């Protein structure tokens, strides 16, 4: 299993990771999501002992990444982003090299190769030089080298980038398959892949964990549910509350009645034909007002033509969580004042460079996002739907990260 506790990484004044904590248990396939520059690759590089954290601790398969890097590396299979391989070697030579480096017996290696060749689909390129392969095949070889020693833990940084849709589906199918016995941390930008392969996701933004939990939890906790209700505007039926006058409802009546339900907001009338009123509105996280809506229609004697409840898509949640977090940054300091007061101004200056592979020099990027705290408060007053969603997302979505803090 993988445990990260308060991992922090600074590149000069830029804070690439800010107290990132999470756990991935045995047999879990966890999607590691976040926009470019969020700190996904940095976290993975720390977990694979390629770089060291500036603070915090991490353990992989029970071994500390700082004290026992060799033990950690023996237990993991790692596919870095844009896996670079030795182009002058053939695929077979390269995989043999990796096997030799890992000290595998040749018999064991050949046995493993049978599986890897089949799973990664590299049978026809085994004898070819890696430099002559397409990006997709190189990615497959990269995946193959991560699997050579049959590791209990796989850390895959965008394994499906550069693959065509069929190849992507195949790799995701394989990840699901091997994930039954292994711990897998899978970084990707493709949310559909996460939904297909990962029961759980961790979303990071600006170096912090902003959501951690099962996909359903993240969807529910971090965002509103959406209801669509359509009632007949011409006919009513007898029944329900006898005192209520049974007449054809107007749009205003329907909206007023629905808006009296607990936790609903953001009403929007949807275009329909002349025979129905249709409304879309949001519900509060964790609640379900379908029973109330049904009861209301019965009481009023309205014919309900449609009632739909939809959780937000992961993509919406992702956008809300990461955008909301970015917006919240403008008005608040990332580091607690008592902790490191001298870093604060520099942290703000360092914003703006979103490259995933942040080097020290690169940290001093564009300062477009730099906004004074007062201005950020001004932003908060713009109450469009997205902003409200973002607020909710950053308040409710983070299980362990500090995203819930207000500026």
């Amino acid at each position, binding site marked *: 299993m993988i445990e990260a506790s308060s991992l922090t990484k600074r590149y000069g004044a830029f804070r690439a990771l800010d107290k990132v904590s999470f756990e991935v248990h045995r047999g879990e396939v966890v999607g590691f999501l976040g926009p470019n520059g969020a700190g996904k690759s940095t976290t993975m590089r720390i977990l694979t*002992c390629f*770089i060291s954290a500036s603070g915090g601790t991490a353990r992989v398969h029970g071994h500390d990444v700082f004290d026992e890097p060799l033990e950690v*590396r023996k237990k993991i299979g790692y596919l*870095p982003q844009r896996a670079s*391989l*030795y182009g*002058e070697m053939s695929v077979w030579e390269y995989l043999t090299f990796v096997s*030799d480096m*890992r000290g595998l017996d040749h018999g064991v290696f050949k046995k493993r190769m049978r599986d890897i060749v089949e799973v990664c689909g590299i049978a026809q390129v085994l004898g070819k030089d890696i430099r002559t392969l397409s990006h997709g095949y190189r990615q497959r070889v990269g995946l193959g080298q991560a699997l050579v020693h049959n590791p209990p833990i796989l850390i895959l940084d965008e394994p499906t980038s550069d693959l065509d849709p069929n190849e992507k589906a195949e790799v995701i199918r394989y990840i699901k398959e091997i994930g039954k016995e292994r711990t897998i941390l899978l970084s990707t930008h493709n949310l559909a892949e996460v939904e297909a392969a990962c029961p759980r996701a961790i979303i990071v933004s600006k170096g912090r964990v902003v959501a951690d939990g099962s996909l359903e939890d993240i969807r529910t906790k971090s965002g509103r549910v959406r209801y669509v209700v359509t009632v007949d505007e011409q006919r009513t039926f007898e029944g329900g509350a006898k005192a209520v006058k049974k007449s054809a409802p107007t749009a205003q009546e329907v909206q007023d009645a629905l808006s009296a339900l607990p936790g609903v907001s953001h009403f929007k009338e949807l275009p329909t034909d002349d025979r129905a009123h249709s409304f879309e509105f949001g519900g509060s996280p964790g609640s379900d007002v379908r029973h109330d809506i049904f009861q209301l229609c019965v009481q009023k004697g309205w014919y309900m033509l449609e009632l739909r409840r939809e959780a937000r898509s992961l993509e919406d949640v992702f956008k809300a969580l990461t955008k909301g977090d970015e917006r919240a940054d403008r008005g608040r300091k990332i580091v607690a004042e008592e902790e490191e007061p001298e870093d604060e101004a520099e942290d703000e200056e360092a914003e703006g460079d979103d490259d995933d592979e942040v080097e020290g020099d690169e940290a001093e990027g564009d300062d477009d996002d730099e906004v004074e705290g007062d201005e950020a408060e001004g932003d908060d007053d713009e109450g469009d739907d997205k902003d409200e969603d973002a607020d909710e997302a950053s308040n409710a979505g983070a299980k362990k990260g500090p995203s819930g803090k207000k500026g």
Partner: protein
Amino acid sequence: MRIIWTIAKREFKSNFISPLAYVVICLSLLLLGAVFFFGLPRLGGAFFQAGRATLVQMFTLMPPLLALVVVPVVTMRLVAEEKRSGTLELLITLPVRDYEVILGKFFGAWGLVMVLVLTTLLFPLMMFVFPWKLGALDWGPLGSGYLGLVLFTTAAVSIGLFISALTDSQVVAFFVTWFVLVLFTILGGLVEQNSIAALRDLAYISFDARLTPFSRGIISLRDAVFFVSISLLCLMGSFWALERRKWA
């Protein structure tokens, strides 16, 4: 040891996959042969003009040849190219220690340069053993001369490796290595006539001055320690440069 050997083997072989190693070895041997047999007046003339069964000229010619062409070309890509292309990340995240990576790369490059150095053994063997027997060669100075070359190669490759580990540009690594090696090789000649005593003392760290006793058959422990010290310092520096990534 297994890991060092695996890395060294891959590094050594990679030179022969491209024409690089063949071109460097062949051109160097041609150049060395031409200068050795046909001579350059400023380097003491050709072998046959010396009138003695000696290979001192070869041991005088070899260090500048290695410093000017061979070592910078062989060492420039050792770490710099791996950093630039990103292969270093995969290599380092295998179960290896940083010093094993450095030593593996060192031995891979050192092995290639030694192939060239040892190939020059063909000169004395062909001239004095088979097929020609040009006279009785004094094998003592030959052995010590080669020992000097081995020590020089070790130090030069270590310097090249260190510089390659400091940058991610092969071109920068090549020129800096070239400059440092040439400077160390010709330093003795540059400062020996200088009127300032302190500058003349710089001759003590000149490769040229340190190699002269070896080519004359003298195995000087002081000179051997000099080359070994430079090698160790540069290997430690390379290790530090590689570890630097963790804390960047």
